[in-house]
């Protein structure tokens, strides 16, 4: 069994345990009541979306530094999983905002910068399809991922720097004791799943890049056109 399949299975176990704990055994939040249970799904997704983007940033630096397809494939894996978590995060946040704020969405600094983050990293994936020359595609993917990552600390500190409707930074230090463990277990569940998904996606991308390197997939004339365009 490949290591990331085992990690994925562990992620399912942790996420299932954390979610069941948060839904059925953790106490209702003292002001929000049962709506507060969204905490155990939303906050782990948010933490891990930012963490996966950090991994993508490291992979982008590695890609630009080494020009190796292994770094590039990890970069693609992390960016894609980051975007999935980011979209999920916004949905969860909207479902929490409606009963607490009265609206699904507000153009508040945290929410706006998070939405921009989706656009930036989705752009990294989209632009990969615009370039067929491997070297050019690798460099542009790395550079755009680094540029997109600049928004991650802005998202993180948005509630500190600006007057935000969204609550401040969340951590175990700001959460009551009975809520710690379901939150932590859920967070590790999402982390394990995110890394497992990224590893699988990276494996697929690596195989694709290797095929592209070794097989003459493009007709000679098209290759010459691309080389000429550079």
């Amino acid at each position, binding site marked *: 069994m490949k290591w990331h399949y085992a990690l*994925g299975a562990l992620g*399912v176990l942790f*996420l299932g345990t954390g*979610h069941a704990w948060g*839904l059925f055994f953790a*106490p*209702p*939040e*003292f*002001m*929000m*009541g*049962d*709506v*507060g*249970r*969204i*905490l155990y*799904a*939303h906050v782990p*997704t948010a933490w891990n979306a930012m963490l996966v983007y950090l991994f993508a940033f490291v992979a982008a630096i590695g890609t630009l530094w080494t020009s190796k397809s292994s770094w590039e494939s990890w970069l693609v894996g992390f960016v894609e*999983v980051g975007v*999935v978590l980011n979209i*999920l995060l916004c*949905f*969860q946040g909207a*479902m*929490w905002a*409606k*009963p*607490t*704020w*009265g*609206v699904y969405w507000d153009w*508040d600094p945290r929410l706006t910068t998070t939405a921009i983050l989706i656009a930036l990293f989705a752009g990294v994936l989209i632009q990969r399809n615009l370039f067929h020359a491997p070297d050019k595609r690798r460099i542009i993917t790395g550079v755009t991922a680094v540029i997109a990552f600049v928004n991650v600390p802005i998202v993180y500190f948005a509630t500190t720097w600006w*007057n*935000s*409707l*969204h*609550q*401040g930074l*969340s951590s175990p*230090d*700001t*959460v*009551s004791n*009975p*809520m710690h463990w379901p939150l932590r277990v859920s967070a590790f569940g999402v982390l394990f*799943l995110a890394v497992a*998904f990224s590893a*699988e*996606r990276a494996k*697929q991308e690596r*195989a*694709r890049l290797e095929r592209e390197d070794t097989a003459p997939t493009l007709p000679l004339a098209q290759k010459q056109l691309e080389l000429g365009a550079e």
Partner: protein
Amino acid sequence: MNPWILLSVAHAQEAENADGGEDVVETPSAQTEPFGEAPSEAPTVSSETVADPGGIPEGGFIGNDSYGAIPLGSGWGYVWAVYIVTWLTMLGYAGYLALRNRKTS
């Protein structure tokens, strides 16, 4: 009074007073009707529902922004929507990767 709540209310009131109304920070109003209906009045938050400044509320978390307005037992629809969509997303992405794997192998 939790200073975060004051800031949030100030933010909301700034939006409401965008036509030039004065910015007044008042005691936050509670949303007594569930699911976002406009409150019929503006009840104040009792000292029992507001965290002490700097302390973690028992059974809660700092930054709680419901203003103590949601009755216990309500809002399960939103909770289930979040958890079901979270699991569907995980399953869906795993399925997408499996399909990609089958297609490329």
